[in-house]
């Protein structure tokens, strides 16, 4: 029972470019199972966790994530999430979850109006989600960001609600993009859909500068294994 591998579905939209990295980390580093889910499919192929990886789905020519939400796979993901299934959106994946209304708020262009790729220090605000249970509350972790639209925005009263319900999961120590309340990652009210701008898959192998991201995947696997 304890060694059963958890199956992660990695969604591939045209223009997704972190699919192979995410697949690699799940399979070779976290040592769980990974399958690709093509955007035109409606079948999640037995995935126990669905990951929407980073990239530029459909080129992001309209608005980041704005077109991907109409893909057939998104309907399946919505159903899966409504049933309590774990969904993790990373970077462009987070933007897609916002556009699809699975998470609240919107992404604006970075305050400096430029793409930023660098390591950031984050604080884990909520260590009780299925994706963060292997972290400590208040722990400082290092993960890279790589985006031009990562400036999180939400109306004031909804922001207050997010905070009150402890749904801010990761916060930047030094705000790189103008995000309200330094928000780097949020979870839905049901506690099963996490969106985050930093890339945990890029911080999962020591030689790449940090292993702090790996526990995001390990937490999700542990949660599913034990539930």
């Amino acid at each position, binding site marked *: 029972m304890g060694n059963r591998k958890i199956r992660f579905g990695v969604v591939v939209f045209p223009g997704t*470019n972190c699919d192979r990295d995410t697949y690699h980390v799940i399979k070779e580093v976290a040592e769980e199972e990974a399958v690709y889910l093509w955007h035109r499919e409606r079948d999640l192929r037995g995935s126990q966790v669905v990951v929407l990886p980073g*990239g530029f789905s*459909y*080129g992001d020519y309209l608005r980041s994530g704005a077109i991907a939400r109409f893909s057939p796979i998104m309907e399946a993901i919505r159903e899966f999430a409504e049933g309590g299934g774990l969904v993790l959106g990373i970077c462009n994946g987070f933007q897609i979850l916002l556009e699809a209304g699975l998470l609240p708020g919107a992404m604006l262009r970075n305050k400096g109006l*430029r793409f930023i*790729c660098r390591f950031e220090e984050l604080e884990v605000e909520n260590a009780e989600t299925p994706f963060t249970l292997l972290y400590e509350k208040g722990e400082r972790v290092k993960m890279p960001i790589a985006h031009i639209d990562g400036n999180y925005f939400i109306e004031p009263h909804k922001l207050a609600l997010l905070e009150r319900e402890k749904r801010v999961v990761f916060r930047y120590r030094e705000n790189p993009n103008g995000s309200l309340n330094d928000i780097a990652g949020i979870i839905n009210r049901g506690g099963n859909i996490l969106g985050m701008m930093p890339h945990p898959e890029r911080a999962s192998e020591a*030689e790449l500068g940090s292993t702090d991201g790996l526990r995001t995947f390990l937490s999700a696997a542990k949660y599913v294994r034990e539930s």
Partner: protein
Amino acid sequence: MRSLKRLLEEHNLTVEEYQRIKKILGREPNLVELGLYSVMWSEHCSYKSSKVHLKKLPTKGKYLIQGPGENAGVVEAAGKAVVFKVESHNHPSFVEPYQGAATGVGGILRDIFTMGARPVALLDSLHFGPLERPSNRAIMEGVVSGIAGYGNPVGVPTVGGEVDFEEEFSHNPLVNVMCVGIAEKDGIFYARAGKPGLSLVYAGAPTGRDGIHGATMASAEFGQETEHKKVNVQVGDPFREKLLMEATLEVMEKNLIEGIQDMGAAGLTSSSSEMASKGGVGVELYLDRVPLREEGMNPYEILLSESQERMLMVAKKGKEEEIKRIFEKWGIEAVVVGKTTEDRRFKAFWKGEPVADVPVESLAGDAPQYQRPYEKPEIDEREDPAWAEERNWQKALLKIISSPHMASRRWIYQQYDHMVQTNTVLLPGIGPSVLKIKGQKEAIALTIDANPAWGRANPKAAAVLTVAEAFRNLACVGAEPLGITNCLNFGNPEKPKVMGQFVETIEGMKEALEFFEVPVTGGNVSFYNETQGKAIPPTVVIGAVGLVEDYRTIPRPERVEEGMGIFLLGWTGKDLGSSVYLKAVLGQTGGRVPEIDLEKEKLLQQQLIRLVREGKVAYAVDLSPGGLLPNLAEALFHIDIGAELSFSTREEEAYFLFGESPSRALVFAPGELEADVPVLKLGTVKGQDLVAYINGRKKLDLPLKQLRRSWESLFPSLFDK
């Protein structure tokens, strides 16, 4: 009716070349045919001025799989094929910086995946005019965002590069882009048509009017009316490129094609005629089947368009439908637009009517070659520049590290996604790029180097020094060079002086490469970097690939701990001519370039590689350009600890601290260091300040924080107001 003279001028062909075309055809060419010769015989496509000289370069080596003549070169590393090439997009980047640079990235990416390799890294060599001038800032800003705007969506990390500034680049910036890909050794594809009777499949973006005569534009000087050339610059679509790449790699993996060539310069014409030439066959093209983006395009425009994100493939017999299905899955149009034939002729048809009929070889193989007259360039031998004017090393150091030549490049590289693909072991700015090959302990090390200030003073020596510097960079991570690619940027080759610079540069490269026994695997020549008669300094850009035996043990700043020793390895000469010190501190250019003894250089590199592989080095850095002190300061920024130095010099202090003698390296290591080259312990890693006692006197005492601020502020202060 346009006169013939006017027509030839518009096509950048000489009267002699026109006569030659008439002789080949036995008649007058029609306008379409004239267009074909114009692009295929352009300097950009035919290398007509450079070919006789390029032949002198060594192209054989123990790791070589494919040398010059294909879309890219290939060497073997750790049982894999490493495919790589550098190419210029200088002219388009001046006319339209964002699109010029973006499509430069797109073009070189296609060169790599056309060979069957998945691109794993991009590097750039960028040269602009001084940033005091707003026009130069606008060009730089456009180029940097163009590289980011294309490379980031495609998902290929831009892992390294170099940027520098000289007056002459104000009207002719250099944008040279290098791409590296990895393939299985038996998975390489070539631009060869195979045999007669096979279908030519066009895949990718529809053809538009953009870029018609781009190759011809890159083969002439700019005058005052360059603004009008905007129509010649192509527009890039990285999203389509990404899909094209995935689909292309899939048809290759399923073994459905015989040959493939991307439609780069001279588009459909060059891709089809070059594949036919290499395969010893002919081609027929049915131009009315080519997908078009604009209405009313004629055969001339279709053949010459340089629209981006297009590929031409020779399908295996009977595989056309399967190829189309794969492209369709990725949302890319694929259409049969022609076939290979026996007769070795290049024929194009429009609705059944022939519009061009010329021998394939006359386009792709037998373009004219010129032994252009050249004269030996003047060599700047001035010794003893006015280095003695500034004796305050603290002030000099601050000036240098805050100058455009040495200031932190973070503002640039953080706009590039340099981590996607999760192979980037060494982040930009720290040393050569080091990239993992997943599942293996071996890694590849990459560097791209150029120094136009050296080129201006002495083209031949500059070539030798640049090759040596590239290999020394690799040695700092314990990597042995496997091969190089090069981009040779020059003015107008019809001028004997410029041609002389070119010939000397080739001589220098040949000398260095033969000495190190490392081959050239390909590259690019960019002539006509000249505006209103003013040429750029000769600039040889060297992109080198090396093999790291085990990425887990490479030197890196994080390995350096308080208390470790700081050692200078190698030999110091009197090398302040054409240095960063002269430019940044005294505002002077010129002077004799550093002297190099290749035997010493090789010994230093061998010792570095040995020490690294024995695990004795925590971190190592090359000292040129900028010299010892600025490069030491930069290393400390990465390490994030200060240093206490105390040493004596035999040379004048300025030579020792700021001279750009090659064959030197700075090494951080625990304990003592023994090597078969001179080793001088300079001091210890310690505290939060940089303190130096030189020849018994305190010459430096600055908080690292303050130094770092000077180093980091330049680019943000210029661009993020």
